[in-house]
């Protein structure tokens, strides 16, 4: 058995909502609504009551104004009772993985035994933002007391004040290198010669794999939402099976017009969804007779220049394997979050590139090719969508189900993180 840090930590269960593609306007659920929907059936099937958690940790990037600490609000709404602390973690695209990592380290260090760790996001609710100039003007208006002052303030208004910007677009632009996430994918594609056809073909595979997983019942971690509006949300509705390279080829580039190659068709979708995992110590497993699905061996966070953030999976997973003396071929199942098709493909090529592996990963030779039949076997964010706070949690949970089907002993869930980071979780499947 591979040594882990501190006490052994198990993932004993987990569940998620369907991921719902953002269409026109805000979707029916806030981030906490989604977390509640993801958690209710999950908590119901446990042998313990929700008030027995040591804490609740939730990843979320775009926090709703009415639920400023979604972790605590979700804990209360899930019936954990007044006394279970709840908090929220944010590491951009890896927030839902951060919650697992924080829970893992807490239990490993002996500071807790039973932790609910999740991720949630409602990108369809991302706010419209006003410019700083507009905010200043609003403040002046509210501060004005006399009618004359109010009139004066009113006279200062400029038409530009009322042009809001879309929060999600600003969130997807790196504030340091001033590149949008799509542009970083364009850079990676260029570096490793990923063509538009390569990317579109990968995207089609992601959709087809998800469609197959849906029809074969392989998404057992998903619980339908039966909402108060009488609607049933029972599947990841971004899936489009049976697309062709010709059809996808017609889409226009989204970020670098007109020559770019990253299109809406080969990027992850903007979606809403929530996911939870339950982490337990050995003591908790014994006390509540839980059935561990996987043991968390270790995790790794790494960082690089924000302009090439897409290499995050490579720079985080490789040292994680090295630390435990594992080879590429020891990993029987991979979940690499599909921010962009070009980005995933560039990662795979970087691993096969001796120079990259030597200069950046410090390996003597190329890491080698990852078995495509062990990678994202049920599709990924391109087909499912990428609710940023949720994805890290979702791929870690789904890795367990995928690895079980592949009879893999070890699996890695990893993702790139806007801002130039990578995160990876190494699991032993039980």
């Amino acid at each position: 058995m591979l040594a882990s840090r501190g006490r052994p930590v198990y993932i004993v269960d987990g569940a998620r909502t369907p991921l719902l593609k953002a269409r026109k306007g805000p979707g029916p659920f806030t981030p906490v609504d989604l977390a509640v929907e993801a958690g209710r059936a999950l908590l119901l099937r446990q042998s313990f009551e929700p008030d027995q958690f040591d804490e609740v940790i939730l990843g979320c990037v775009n926090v709703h104004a009415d639920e400023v600490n979604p972790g605590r609000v979700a804990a209360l709404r899930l019936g954990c009772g007044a006394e279970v602390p709840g908090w929220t973690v944010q590491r951009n695209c890896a927030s839902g993985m951060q919650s697992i990592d924080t829970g893992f380290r807490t239990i490993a260090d002996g500071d807790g035994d039973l932790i609910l760790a999740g991720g949630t996001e409602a990108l369809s609710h991302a706010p419209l933002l006003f410019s700083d100039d507009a905010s200043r003007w609003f403040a002046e208006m509210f501060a004005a007391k006399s009618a004359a002052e109010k009139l004066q303030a009113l006279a200062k208004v400029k038409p530009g004040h009322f042009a809001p910007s879309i929060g999600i677009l600003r969130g997807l632009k790196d504030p340091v290198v001033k590149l949008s996430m799509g542009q970083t994918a364009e850079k990676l594609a260029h570096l490793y010669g990923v063509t538009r056809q390569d990317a579109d073909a990968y995207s089609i595979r992601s959709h087809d794999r998800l469609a197959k997983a849906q029809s074969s019942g392989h998404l057992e971690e998903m619980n339908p939402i039966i909402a108060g509006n009488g609607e049933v949300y029972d599947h990841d509705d971004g899936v489009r099976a049976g697309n062709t390279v010709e059809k996808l080829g017609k889409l226009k580039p989204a970020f670098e017009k007109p020559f770019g190659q990253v299109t809406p068709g080969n990027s992850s979708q903007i979606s809403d969804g929530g996911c939870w995992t339950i982490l337990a110590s050995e003591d908790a497993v014994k006390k509540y007779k839980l059935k561990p699905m996987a043991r968390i061996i270790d995790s790794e966070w790494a960082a690089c220049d924000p302009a090439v953030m897409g290499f995050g999976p490579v720079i985080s997973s490789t040292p994680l394997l090295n630390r435990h003396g594992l080879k590429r071929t020891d990993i029987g199942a991979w979940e690499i979050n599909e921010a962009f098709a070009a980005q995933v493909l560039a990662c795979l090529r970087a691993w096969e590139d001796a120079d990259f592996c030597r200069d950046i990963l410090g390996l003597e030779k190329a890491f080698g090719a990852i078995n495509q039949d062990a990678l994202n076997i049920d599709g990924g964010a391109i087909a499912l969508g990428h609710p940023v706070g949720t994805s890290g949690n979702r791929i870690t949970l789904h890795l367990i189900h995928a690895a079980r089907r592949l009879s893999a002993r070890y699996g890695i869930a990893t993702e790139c993180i806007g801002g130039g980071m990578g995160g990876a979780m190494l699991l032993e499947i039980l």
Partner: protein
Amino acid sequence: MREPLETRAIALEALTSDPLTIAAAAKSQPKELSSLKLENWHAYLDSDGCAWVIADRKGSSANTLSTPVLKELDVILGGLEAISPKAVIFRSAKKSGFIMGAEISEFSNMVESTAVKAVLDRGLALLDRIEKLPAPTIAAIHGYCLGGGLELALACNYRIITDDARLGFPEVQLGLHPGLGGTWRTLRMVDPDVGIEMMLTGRSLYARQAKKMGLVDTVTQERHMASAIEWARKGKLKTDHTLSTKGVAMNLGPARPLIAGQMEKQTAKKARREHYPAPYAMIDLWRQHGGDWKEMRRAESESFARLITSETSQNLVRVFFLREELKAAAKGKEAKIKHVHVIGAGVMGGDIAAWSALSGYRVTLQDMKPEFIAPAMKRAQKLFTRKLRAPGEARAAMDRLIPDLAGDGIAKADLIIEAVTEKPEIKQLVYSQCEARMKRSAILATNTSSLLLETLAAGLKAPKRFCGIHFFNPVAKMPLVELVSHEGLDKQTLNRATKWIADIGKLPLQVKSAPGFLVNRALTPYLMEAFIAYGEGVKPEVIDAAAEDFGMPMGPIELADRVGLDVALHAAASMKKQIGGTFPQIPDWFKKKVAAGDIGRKSGKGIYAYDENGKVQKEETDERADDGLQDRLILPMLNACVACLADGIVESAELTDGGIIFGTGFAPFRGGPMHYIEKRGANEIHSKLEALAEQYGPRFKPHKGWKTLL
């Protein structure tokens, strides 16, 4: 792993509610107060020289204005008149609220109007003395403040209420209007439209509504009560006890008859004058004396005395106590239920689950497909939004109501209610799945309306924890729940289920397992007779009118359409099978109609047609039924009640009356079927039944149980 500590959770919870603001007594007290022997009040001066008069009725969790309570108030006022406190503050020491109103048990003896007037005069004199106290008088109100309690508060200079307070005049529900100055004391400072509406509906106002209409001076939180009282006694609290210009105009002679006419029209939609005279008396009172408060005061007493001695009011008081009697069955019992699991998300199962979640329980609602559960969630959301107005409460109720496709709730539940299709083999399959997973301490209940418990209990591993918990449609509106017992049921299960029914705000009625139990056993012959009359060619409008003339809230044809003709047919067929004999033949046209899919409002067409909003399309008709039709409809119901009582399905005549009123809406002002038999005369009804049997057939044959009544 957190180890939740129940004592700490309770202590934490207690921190969330503000303790009541009641000043301590000063060390030295004037003997005018200290010498009083009080059992139901506390009266003393605080260190600022303000008098506190605190209602704290002995041996009760709520205050009412019983004779002893009023007698003590009399001596307290004597003490206050002799000293000169800086202010007089009326409060309650009870958590439940201020004062709930009169002691209704004293109403049953009020049959003689001069005696009633004497009682009223004594009460009015007390409130006048409060009004005349020279110091500022302040009613500091939390929780419920109803009827006589509100009348006392209205005699004070100031009314300060907390934001959880509920104020109202529920007298109309007892066939009365306010009688201790409530009518004119309200209307001299509140506009007549809102003031009279409040008395006509009997509705309890929320704090904000009461403030808006000018009934109270300020709304605050309990934690600021001391400051609010200080403001009031120092004259800092702004008050406006005058009517709006509109209100003044409405009170003028020429306007009153017009407005009163409008009010009568509105009232007629809800209640008929001949059945419920009280709201009309209230309107008359204002029409004749609005604006002249002195005259209105005199007329209020007279009108009240007339109403309370009437049969309607006495019957409604009886209904009030029937309700209390049904509730009393839960007294001293413990439910020990936190989680309710409902199997079957149809109309009944879904609505039972929603009602349970509304009442604060964690609820799981199990069915096989999400699509089966979705309509129930939608109805639940509607119910919660309507019933739970405080921010976040409706959402919290939705969070408590958990769709459960896997049936995981079975293992967590303390009470499992099965509401699947009325087929014994399917129900038994559900039970075996439940018994394999449920907690040993959990109760297994069925919502069956037509199957015998003995049939369903066959094959159970532990029949002692199995019972019937039978709700009526629509669950949110019908107060009664039948608790069906059987031979193998143990006392503990029965007690826990009884208490749970009361805890969700319903009225438990214990009945024995028998065809149709009590309510459907009585209701089905009534519906059947309506169908038979319809088959004979009587217009449905005429049939319904005959029943409504009697006082039924809705005629039998419309009721059957609403419940669903399919449901009615199933109930009739299974009762025919179980009772056989004299139970009427089910008409063929009825079976055909159901087979054709015309099953009532839910399909858009039943015996009546319905528009797209589900509104019934009735034909205007001048035709009236002869008296015979009303008896044809009502008497079979009475006959069935006598049968149930004789067969021991229900324990007493009172419980029969309660069950039928709260389970069917049977004309409350008639006091219940058994009471009606007594009033009209058992002999007369018995011979009428015999005559009907002669004319129409053996289905009218009086049950042998009549013998004990004749």
